[in-house]
């Protein structure tokens, strides 16, 4: 009986070894392990075996079956792998052919700059506030300490709808609206469109965008203003950016300053980009003028604040090295796709 089993096993293993398709392998399986297979035949012959030998023979049969099955499984795996390899070999593609793009749209560089600025201040706990673009003279000028006949009114060539209504020349009016709400402390930025009667050229546009910031609280200091804007500059232009505050004048702040940042092209050494200065003027800022606080119903004896404002187009042009402001309003898709 053992000899018979050994013979079946040897024969099976030889057959499996020489087998080259899964179909043939299956035939082998049927011929040996199937209902009418040879090994099954051995099992059927068990009744002729002496009862005391049956367990031993049964074990032998099972061992033989297990080995054949194992070898068969290995052969099957090997064959399937070979088939897959062959298929993949036939499926080689040219990975350098052009991509099939899902053409997503692009955001306007001005908006990108605006969002960069916004996210920095949102991170510092500022709210983003909006205000009307067609504004009252009071909010655009008077409440910002620019009374009628003030020369600053001429400096900002204003588009008027009538004597009292105008297209805002600065986003600063949003500050006043926010302060008038009387909810303190205030930490806000106000991005938006502003208008000045400048003819359109490579560096001027009758309509552009500003972003304005305001903080009002007890004990807000000029040192806080410096610290806040220095951090902003580092986040916007890079960790190594240095800032310089120069005294300046704005009617709505006192003391006032202009802030320069080290040129992000040359790092401050001086290059063509910064006209050899090493510094680039970025924004105006200052401590909110007590008159402005007072007019908006905030007690300047109790509260102080700082404010700052910058031109978004200027930041976009500088950051993305755009050499002509007009590109921002032509909406040429070849321009927009670069952002």
């Amino acid at each position, binding site marked *: 009986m053992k000899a018979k089993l050994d013979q079946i096993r040897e024969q099976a293993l030889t057959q499996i070894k020489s087998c080259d398709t899964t179909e043939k392998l299956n035939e082998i399986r049927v011929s040996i392990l199937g209902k009418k297979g040879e090994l099954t035949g051995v099992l059927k012959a068990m009744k002729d075996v002496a009862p005391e030998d049956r367990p031993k023979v049964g074990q032998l049969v099972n061992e033989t079956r297990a080995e054949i099955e194992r070898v068969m499984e290995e052969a099957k795996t090997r064959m399937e792998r070979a088939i897959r390899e062959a298929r993949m070999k036939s499926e080689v593609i040219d990975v350098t052919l052009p991509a099939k793009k899902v053409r997503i*749209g692009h955001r306007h560089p001005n908006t990108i700059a605006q969002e960069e600025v916004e996210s920095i201040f949102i991170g*510092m706990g500022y*709210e983003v506030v909006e205000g009307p673009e067609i504004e009252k003279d009071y909010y655009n000028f008077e409440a910002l300490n620019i009374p009628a006949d003030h020369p600053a009114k001429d400096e900002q060539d204003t588009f008027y709808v009538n004597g009292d*209504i105008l297209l805002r020349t600065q986003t600063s009016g949003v500050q006043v609206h926010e302060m008038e709400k009387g909810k303190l402390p205030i930490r806000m930025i106000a991005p938006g*469109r502003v208008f000045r009667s400048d003819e359109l050229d490579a560096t001027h546009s009758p309509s552009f965008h500003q972003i304005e910031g305001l903080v009002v609280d007890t004990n807000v200091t000029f040192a806080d203003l410096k610290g806040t804007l220095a951090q902003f500059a580092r986040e916007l232009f890079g960790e190594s950016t240095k800032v310089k*505050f*120069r005294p300046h004048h704005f009617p709505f702040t*006192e003391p006032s300053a202009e802030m320069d940042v080290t040129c992000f092209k040359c790092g401050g050494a001086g290059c063509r980009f910064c006209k050899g200065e090493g510094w680039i003027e970025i924004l105006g800022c200052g401590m909110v003028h007590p008159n402005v606080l007072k007019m908006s119903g905030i007690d300047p004896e109790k509260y102080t604040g700082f404010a700052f404002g910058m031109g978004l187009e200027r930041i976009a042009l500088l950051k993305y090295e755009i050499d002509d402001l007009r590109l921002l309003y032509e909406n040429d898709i*070849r321009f927009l*796709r670069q952002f």
Partner: protein
Amino acid sequence: MNTALSWIKAYVPELDCTDEEYRDAMTMSGTKVEGYERRDKNLESIVVGQITSIERHPDADKLIVCQVDIGSGKIQIVTGAPNVKVNDKVPVVLDGGKVAGGHDGGPLPEEGVPIKAGRLRGVDSFGMMCSIEELGSDRNMYPEAPEEGIYVFQEDVPVGADAVALLGLRDTVFEYEITSNRVDCYSVLGIAREAAATFGKPFVPPVVKETGNGEDVRDYVSVEVKDADLCTRYLARVCKNIKIAPSPKWMQRRLAASGIRPINNLVDITNYVMEEYGQPMHAFDLDTVAGRKIIVRRAKEGDEFQTLDGQMRKLDSEVLMICDAEKEIGIAGIMGGENSKITDEVKTVLFEAAIFNGANIRKSAKRIGLRTDASGKFEKGLDPRTAEAAINRACQLIEELGCGEVVGGVVDVKAPLPPLGRIPFDWERINRLLGTRISREEMLRIFLKEDLRYDEAANEVEIPSFRQDLIGIADLAEEVARFYGYDRIPTTLPNGEATAGKLTHKQRVEEKARQIAEHCGFSQAMTYSFESPKVFDKLLLSADDGLRQAVVISNPLGEDFSVMRTLSLNGMLTSLAFNYNHRNKDVRLYEMSNIYLPKSLPVTDYVDERVQLTLGFYGEGDFYTLKGVVEEFFDAVGMRGKTEYDPQAGKNFLHPGRQGLIRYKGTEVGFLGEVHPEVLDNYGLGVRTYVAVLDIPSLLPLTTFDRKYTGIARFPAITRDISMVVPRDIMAGQIEGVITQRGGKLMESCQLFDIYEGEQIKAGFKSVAYSITFRAKDRTLEESDVSASMKKILNGLEQMGIELRQ
């Protein structure tokens, strides 16, 4: 404001710094230096030479050969200049030196013009004698220079000396940006005072002495100010026996460096004092002043007046005039009259130093179209006390320069002078505002440097009259900060309670709109808010369309920028056309910006500013592409109910058969459609173009970012397909309406899966197929569950004239 550093140093004698140091320090203390230029740029190796002999050139008629003593020796120079004589002292540039420009004037080369020894027509020449143009200037600034030829020193100058220094060119001209609050700094003295304080050096202003003979000016002239609201002070002095002559070189040089052309002693003195004090002065020939009386009053509407430049000027009743007893003789603060102007024959001069209303001068100058140096100063609002100092300074210079005899006394017609300001000195509050710990003493030292005196008893800082900008404690804080140094103030962050910065719901919806538009391939455009009123016609708006009621700008840059847009399509179509004209394919743009709808006209209050999401494209895609974008956006902002499209949108600018109003839960939120072919023509778009406009304020209340999980269906659905032949004018929306209405509770969805018009279908009909899905939440449906609903649906459809196909 341009001023030579040498003039500043005249009042800050100890000032000793390089140009760069001066620029940086002044800028950091608040007097911003815009730039500076050395006047001796490219002037190298130029000395005074004296011509000792002149011979004719042997081979050239137009050349001469000069022997020139240059102190260290004699050199031979060949020149073509016609004007030199033996013994003339002239600037000589030596071999290897440089001059600034050519002898014909014109733009100066950046690197200058190097001079080398050479041969002219065979004769050696070891240098060059210079014209004033070659030295980088011109006859305007050096009136003594000849019209053509070499500059000849008129004064006795040492041979071999530095000619550049003798011409006053060893100097640097600084250009300042003066802020509008610092009226006092529109003067040399004002800047010098800042420079002294910045560098901690003594400030030595000129000492104005009392001048005048024993006569009384009131015997010469009287002054009446009729419109005191526009003239708060009028000072007049008289000088007689005037001798017109050139002013001294030092005065000419200082004026020239400031860009003012020297004329004669009298004119130069008025200009000099204007620069020095910032107070414009005017000089009248007193013999032309009728009745020897000055009257200050408004002009009469429509008056015409000839200013001293010979031009006729139209006046109105808000223009302030200087008049004599009979006639107008000058436009106050702007320009004098032809009829009273100073000539070389003048005998007696009337000096005027006045304070005119700045705003009035500014407006008058604008209306008349004549802005002068004087008006530019007046319009900033001048200091009445400085005016007095200035007129006395002018008289002092008349005496010192031997220009005439000053008559004693001053006619001074004035409103009460404003009291000098005083600011309580709360030094701790200044530190609290700045975030500094500057000592009280240091602050007082800073004030003293600036001529701000401290009144110990009252603990107040006394403000001099020229500092009209200092009013409150914040102003004092700025003075402290400027001279303490902005760069020395620490950098801290505000402490205070932390507020959470976040976007509002509106901002989130707008951001979502941008994201979805971009995901769908639309790039963001930005267009102007103002446009031409012709846009309404271009967009075929009917004559009575409410959108024609726009906010109009009263002073636009031009008609093309004159009305605030009431719909956002013009910018979009213009941008698409720009791309089309540049042959850009498949362009998809969106814009997120305001339209401006007046609540009433004329505008008296805030207008309705409405954010519009405008989508537009041409190229790949169609109406349904855009509809898909709209619905993706709605889905993203939680508008997941049924959106309806009403084909009766009534938009003239859209294709009449391809437009739809968009309604969500009964609210109109926008429209979309294909642009009308005539509008396409108007914009030069030669391709089908689709636009959608969503009115963000309308849909904002319908949006939500709340999300709730409602479970995933666990039981299988039953799907029934129906195929029908439908009259062409029945819309899919109507069919869906019937299916939805009659589908019953178990109906989950209906989906159009085929629509066809063509040969197999009879004319006027289309083939439409829907797949209807039924599902229950709690069990597997049986056929019998849906057959009743299907029957209802089919009946409903048949009633609409739809044939069902088996």
